[in-house]
């Protein structure tokens, strides 16, 4: 039961990442694409946590922490660059 629910959650998170990719393709401005990138990385942090539960490995959570840190830095730097004040 628990494993089934976790698999369903992983599939739903993958679906939401697919919708974000659709906005990434469609988006008119570059800010739209950065927002879609942000949502994709935040959703993938939750997905990595679910995968680390299913694989019973705590080391994958370190991957999630570093991934969140890098996506935060990327969004900040791209936004400052688009604002032309880097």
């Amino acid at each position: 039961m628990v494993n089934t629910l976790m698999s369903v959650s992983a599939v739903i998170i993958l679906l939401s990442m697919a919708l974000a990719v659709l906005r990434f393709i469609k988006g008119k401005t570059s800010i739209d694409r950065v927002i879609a990138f942000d949502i994709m990385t935040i959703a993938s942090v939750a997905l990595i946590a679910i995968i680390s539960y299913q694989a019973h490995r705590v080391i994958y959570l370190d991957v999630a922490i570093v991934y969140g840190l890098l996506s935060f830095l990327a969004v900040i730097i791209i936004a400052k660059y688009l604002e032309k004040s880097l």
Partner: protein
Amino acid sequence: MELAGAIITLLGSLVLLIASIGLLRMPDVYNRLQAGTKASTLGTILSLLGIILLEPGWIGKLLILIFFIMMTNPVSSHVLARAAYYIRIPFAAGTVVDKLETINEARSDNTDMRDET
């Protein structure tokens, strides 16, 4: 206890799905930012809380991750909204108020202020 954790994780993933639907359907950059960031923060935090209930031994790293997401996600949202405003991305048709307008006019008179940030 484990069933409660799984249900909370499922709830968090549904909130993430709502975030992506809002990202697709909102008419404007600012509305998309609002819908996407708030809902994705809540969804990720709910998913990680569910995994805390499932595996109580991992509470240290998961709490670090939750604290990190609570700190960084509003900051990146604010920086993106600021960049979108100052490169003058137009509002949606139904926007009624722009409280930054006078500040923006004063800023365009004195362009040297931008270098201070």
